[in-house]
């Protein structure tokens, strides 16, 4: 199911100024997103994975136009989205929806679920007339496997799993084309996660949706994604088709992430903690390759030169001076 990409991101950069103020001369900048390129094809799921501080949540906000980029371009359906205003912006918002991680925080605590679902239908001009809106809201709730009885409730009367489903239903009710999912199941239990993920898979096929899935949970990303990109300190360090990346990661960080996941099988080889030290903060960037302070395979060139993201094998990109080194040494 390929075609022209639904979403194209070019050299996306987002820097946040931090500290400083009237009296301080030094301006510290957080380079949250520092040059990201990616393309999402229609009907596919693009998975973006990384630990805290890697910039993935910032990318989610940028894609949903809740933040404006410092530099770079985002193209949706071929059109540049910067500078969208008024009716065009509304149209964009209708077609690109975002689901956040915190299902409790994402709902106005004083709004009934029905109101929470119908409000966007009016503000985005999806339906006219209350009856039609209520109908649509009920449909969406049903699609996520919830009883319509839930519409009369307030958020705090419902469980975390129900709230997360409602937040997804709310996004789906406006019939978007692209759904950005920022940690959609991180706050729910395993069994609820399974339900939500399989439901999302069903809906994707049925309604021809495209997903950008952002998560720190590799297992979830593996399950849902067609293409996966691994982020570290604001950059993509590896990108490939899901199966390929998980079978043979080329970048040492990707390899470390994958081997760090505890496998529910006591017979499996015990995890070797391949990444040293702590997850860094994006305020102080190391020189050269950003990963080198934690990389067990770092050489001199890694400390001096920052490797660009290159296509090492067909369709498999990595930003490393020695791609595949983790595997060669492990054998």
């Amino acid at each position: 199911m390929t075609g022209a990409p639904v979403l194209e991101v070019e050299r996306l950069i987002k820097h946040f100024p931090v500290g400083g103020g009237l009296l301080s001369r030094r301006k510290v900048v957080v380079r949250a997103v520092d040059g990201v390129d990616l393309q999402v094809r229609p009907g596919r799921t693009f998975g973006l994975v990384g630990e805290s501080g890697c910039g993935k949540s910032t990318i989610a906000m940028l894609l949903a136009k809740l933040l404006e980029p410092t530099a770079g371009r985002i193209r949706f359906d071929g059109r540049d989205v910067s500078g969208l205003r008024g009716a065009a912006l509304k149209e964009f918002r209708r077609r690109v929806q975002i689901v956040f991680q915190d299902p409790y925080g994402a709902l106005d605590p004083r709004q009934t679920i029905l109101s929470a679902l119908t409000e966007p239908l009016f503000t985005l001009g999806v339906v006219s007339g209350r009856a039609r809106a209520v109908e649509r809201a009920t449909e969406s709730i049903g699609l996520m496997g919830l009883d319509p009885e839930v519409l009369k409730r307030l958020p705090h009367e419902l469980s975390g799993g129900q709230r997360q489903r409602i937040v997804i239903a709310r996004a789906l009710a406006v019939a978007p084309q692209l759904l950005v999912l920022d940690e959609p199941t991180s706050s729910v239990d395993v069994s609820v996660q399974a339900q939500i993920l399989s439901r999302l898979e069903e809906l994707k096929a049925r309604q021809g949706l495209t997903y950008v899935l952002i998560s720190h949970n590799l297992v979830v990303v593996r399950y849902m994604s067609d293409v996966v990109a691994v982020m570290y300190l604001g950059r993509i360090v590896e990108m490939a088709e899901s199966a390929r990346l998980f079978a043979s990661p080329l970048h040492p960080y990707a390899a470390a992430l994958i081997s760090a996941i505890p496998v529910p099988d006591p017979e499996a080889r015990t995890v070797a903690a391949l990444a040293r030290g702590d997850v860094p903060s994006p305020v102080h960037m190391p020189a050269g390759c950003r990963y080198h302070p934690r990389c067990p395979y770092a050489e001199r060139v890694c400390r001096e030169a920052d490797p660009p993201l290159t296509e090492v094998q067909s369709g498999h990109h990595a930003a490393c001076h020695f791609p595949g080194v983790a595997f060669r040494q492990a054998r």
Partner: protein
Amino acid sequence: MAPPVAERLREAARLLRHARLATAGFVVFLVILATGAAAPFLIPGSVVRDVQFSAKLAPPDAIHWFGTDDFGRDLFSMVLLATHLDLRAALSVVGAALVIGIGLGALAGFVKSLDEPLMRITDVFLSIPSLVLAMAIASVLGRSIENLSIALVFVSWPIYCRLMRGQVLSEKEKPYVRALRSLGVGRARMIVRHIIPNTVFPVVARAPADVGLILITLAALSYIGFGPGPYVPEWGSLVAAGQAYIFQAPWLVVFPGGAIFLTSLSLNLVGDWARDVFDPRLRS
């Protein structure tokens, strides 16, 4: 808005049953309120001018339940009329201050360009002691109860503005605000339909106690001579007038002073309870 308010009222009623002090305060205040409301119908306003120097400073008896004041007027009638006047003044002052403070505070919190100027203005108001400010405004406008009320509105709104601004600033960062933005909710709708309803209650919960404070401030103004004068029945001026006769006719101070005390106390109890209802409930 119906379901959250209904549920909140149910919780409030449940809490009331458990908090007997607050219930007592509530009841007392309601009685005072009813008295104040009924007063103009029970007592003719002419009582104020019913000066009878021959009957002045008489102690409480069967005819004059609270005795008579230094002009020979029935103190009970005066206190009752004052109830009406004081309550109306205090409630309208707090009401107006709330509306202005909440409105400006919401704007300051939500619209960054308005924040700085509004905060500087409130800084100015807050740096002047309230009594001095009220006196200054009253001396410009005149000393009627209406003008005093206006002066007190000037004194009261900055606090509500600050409080509201703080609430709005933190509420703005909450995930649901971001989510609603991505769902096409514009700024005006965001402030009115979402932010204000979620932030206004802790601010409003202060109001009952502030009504008590305004009453005391009015009394203080009268006491230092900035009051509306002996022909306007106001608790504070009654106390101020009675102060000169405190040993001969203590009832002149006791009854109006008691009224201030009782109203203030009951309002404080209700205010404490209101804070308990509105603040932690939101966190649950």
